[in-house]
């Protein structure tokens, strides 16, 4: 309910002169003043506060009232005591509360999705007092427990804007801010609230300046326009991202409800009804995959898309992918043979992205292999390349189609519901972003061998648990 411990129970003070100009004010009120478009030493720009100050001055009496200050996305409610002292008015503000407008939840989800799709960088999370609770790899000298505001310089431009956005609990995107210890980052974040509306802190991403678009690096540091690659020219996320946001949640509900019906968890149902539910769940999952692919597509098609360089073990990833899809394969009586458990194939790449590629390859193999067949997942090193091969016993791919399968939306004429035609395109782009590649060897009727290559690693990789 309360904005945070400091604001919720503490008292914020301000003093206005006879013309409603701010003589002195605590920082939070100054941020509100800026958010309302006023200067720190100008006339109070929040009309509700000005009205109370004038009433106190006119009546010559202390005024103690609740105050509602409406904002663009959220309302601020607080308790004000205004005491006239000659022409001046001393004001105390306490019991600060903020609440989202009715459509705030939807907006918050939109913001969260936008931030998730911000240029790659390090993730961060603060508590309600704006201290870092968590900072991701790549944050340099910033550590958990550090003051959020002490990390960035108040240069009067973006620094002020950052402070203002946080004071009024708004999301911000692609704000170029200077770090105290040098360097500039594009900062994006959105506020977190619990069920009662209590402010819990911020979560967001910091990307090296210019990580989104080439031209962004030349943008002035003291003005933080919304990153062009996050928000479209109309000020809204581009179509793909809006699609992602709009579909993911309802699809999740559709799938969950369909699975509930299919499993007859609420009681027995006619067989044809459970079959319909199974169809709905399958279709929902297919659409969800498409949404995932579109989201990935948006990310990897950016000019400056980057991946992390981590020590990984391709054999381990192959075993993980086999484990993830083992049940799905077993449903069709397909046996997946993963690399041996004592096998290690060190490589350089991003763990999450490499696993995504292998899961995609294995998923395709299961989808297009005949029942009662075998899929082999093999890993090894050849020269300076670490390789992982997914080989199946499917119908194979004609030589003239072997490059086409890596094109966007290419499904080689298949009309079945499965697959979006984006998986291999995305996987190859990811592999190449990791300085590797994804190729295929096949002949009609002889199955297919998809080969992921990555730079070979030189050290024993950390095992991601």
């Amino acid at each position, binding site marked *: *309910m309360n904005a945070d411990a400091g604001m919720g129970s503490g008292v914020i003070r301000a003093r206005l002169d006879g013309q409603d100009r701010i003589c002195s004010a605590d920082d939070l009120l100054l941020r509100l003043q800026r958010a309302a478009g006023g200067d720190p030493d100008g006339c109070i720009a929040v009309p509700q506060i000005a009205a109370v100050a004038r009433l106190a001055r006119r009546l*010559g*009496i202390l*005024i103690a009232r609740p105050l509602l200050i409406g904002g663009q996305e959220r309302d601020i409610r607080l*308790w004000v005591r205004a005491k006239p002292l000659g022409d001046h008015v001393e004001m105390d503000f306490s*019991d600060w509360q903020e609440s989202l407008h009715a459509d705030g939840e939807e907006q918050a989800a939109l913001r969260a999705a936008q931030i998730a799709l911000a240029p790659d960088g390090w993730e961060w999370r603060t508590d309600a007092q704006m201290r870092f609770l968590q900072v991701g790899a790549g944050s340099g000298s910033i550590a958990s427990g550090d003051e959020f505001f002490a990390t960035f310089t108040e240069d009067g431009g973006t620094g002020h804007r950052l402070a203002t956005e946080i004071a009024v609990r708004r999301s911000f995107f692609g704000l170029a801010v200077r770090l105290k210890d040098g360097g500039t980052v594009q900062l994006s974040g959105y506020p977190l609230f619990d069920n009662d509306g209590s402010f819990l802190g911020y979560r967001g991403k910091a990307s090296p300046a210019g990580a989104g678009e080439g031209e962004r690096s030349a943008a002035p540091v003291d003005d933080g326009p919304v990153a062009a690659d996050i928000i479209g020219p109309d000020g809204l996320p581009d179509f793909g991202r809006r699609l992602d946001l709009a579909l993911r949640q309802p699809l999740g509900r559709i799938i969950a409800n369909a699975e509930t019906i299919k499993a007859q968890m609420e009681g027995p149902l006619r067989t044809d009804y459970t079959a319909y539910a199974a169809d709905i769940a399958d279709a929902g999952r297919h659409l969800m995959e498409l949404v995932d692919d579109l989201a990935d597509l948006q990310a990897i098609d950016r000019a400056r898309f980057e991946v992390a360089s981590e020590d990984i073990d391709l054999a381990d990833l192959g075993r993980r992918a086999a484990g993830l899809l083992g049940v799905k394969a077993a449903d069709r009586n397909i046996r997946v043979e993963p690399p041996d458990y004592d096998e290690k194939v060190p490589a350089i790449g991003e763990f999450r992205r490499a696993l995504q590629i292998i899961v995609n390859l294995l998923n395709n193999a299961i989808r297009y292999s005949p029942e009662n067949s075998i899929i082999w997942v093999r890993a090894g090193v050849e020269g300076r390349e670490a390789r992982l091969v997914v080989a199946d016993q499917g119908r194979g791919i004609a030589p003239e189609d072997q490059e086409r399968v890596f094109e966007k939306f290419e499904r080689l004429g298949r009309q079945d519901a499965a697959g979006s035609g984006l998986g291999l395109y995305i996987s190859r782009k990811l592999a190449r972003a990791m300085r590797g590649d994804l190729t295929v060897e096949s002949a009609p009727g002889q199955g297919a061998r998809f080969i992921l290559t990555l730079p070979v690693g030189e050290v024993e990789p950390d095992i991601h648990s």
Partner: protein
Amino acid sequence: MSAMSPVPGGYAPETGWPLPSHMLGAAREPLRQALLLERCFEGEAARWSDALIARTRRHIGGCVAAVETSLRTELEQRAPGLPPLAEIVPASIGWTAFQRWPSLLGPDLVRHFRDRAGISLMAQNDQMAWGAVGAGPGAPPEYPSFLPSIAVETLSKLTFAQARWADAGPDETSMRPDVSAEAMERLVWVLTALLADRLARTGLMPVPDMLALADQAGRAVLSAHDEQTGPFALAALLAHQVRGQEKGMELLLWLARNHHMAALIAMMADRIDMDGAILVSTIMEAPEQLLFDLCRAADFPREVAVRLVLGRRCMSRGVEDSVLIHYADAYEHGGREDAARAIIPLRLSNAFREGLAALRDRGPVDER
């Protein structure tokens, strides 16, 4: 007894205008105010109960006495050359003057005192005072354990402030003037004028000097006033502090069962986004169906609504029991949206309502 129609969701319109007087702001009606004053001081024909009239007189008399005492003290401190005021000016000038010329109080002040008297009666129902909150007389109050400590502190202050309002001593015995800032301003300057007028007649100091002195005294009394000590302000603060409380329903029930009417009305004002002072006046004036609509719009449980309506009977009798039972039975079937629609006129701006009130009983402008 009034004869309100038990039409669910609607009210019998008064003549010539679709919005009845309680929707337009009764304070804007001089005749009603005059009637209240008459009833308060001389008349016998109004609908208000004897208890409300007696309590209103007690609150006016007590606050007037307290403010007059403060003014006299300030005047004596600022004019040491003057003889003690008690020797040159009769006692209780204010109370005497108001009994003789009730209209000096003005409609807003009269309404304010009527409202606080009404709330104090509703709170006092069944021997409210703060002893009723605890296990027995003299026991420490036991507040809901789920309330945050800051709200418990406010509730505690509110309990004691309401207990002050239940003081049923002689009319002119001093009572803490915990009124709103606007009411205090009016009260202080009317009393300052009465005292200044009386002092001017003594000829002990030049009139301009005496007026300047009185002005300083009035300002001093005003600057010492803190409206947050009053039950209405404390109730508004409590409503602010418990907004969004997980156990909102339990709190409402607890407040209703312990006759914390000011807190209930403040929470209602907060929930339906109405000015608290206007809502209190509405609750004093409104027919029972509108009270139920207000409760429904605020999403109050039925028990709370019934307690609120029954609590108001101590000041005006209202509809027959059978009608009340009909309203109460229909309470849970009525939609919150319908109730919210029914109270829209109450949330109109004062200026608009004044405009509508001015047109009332006049008929369309193009009709001759």
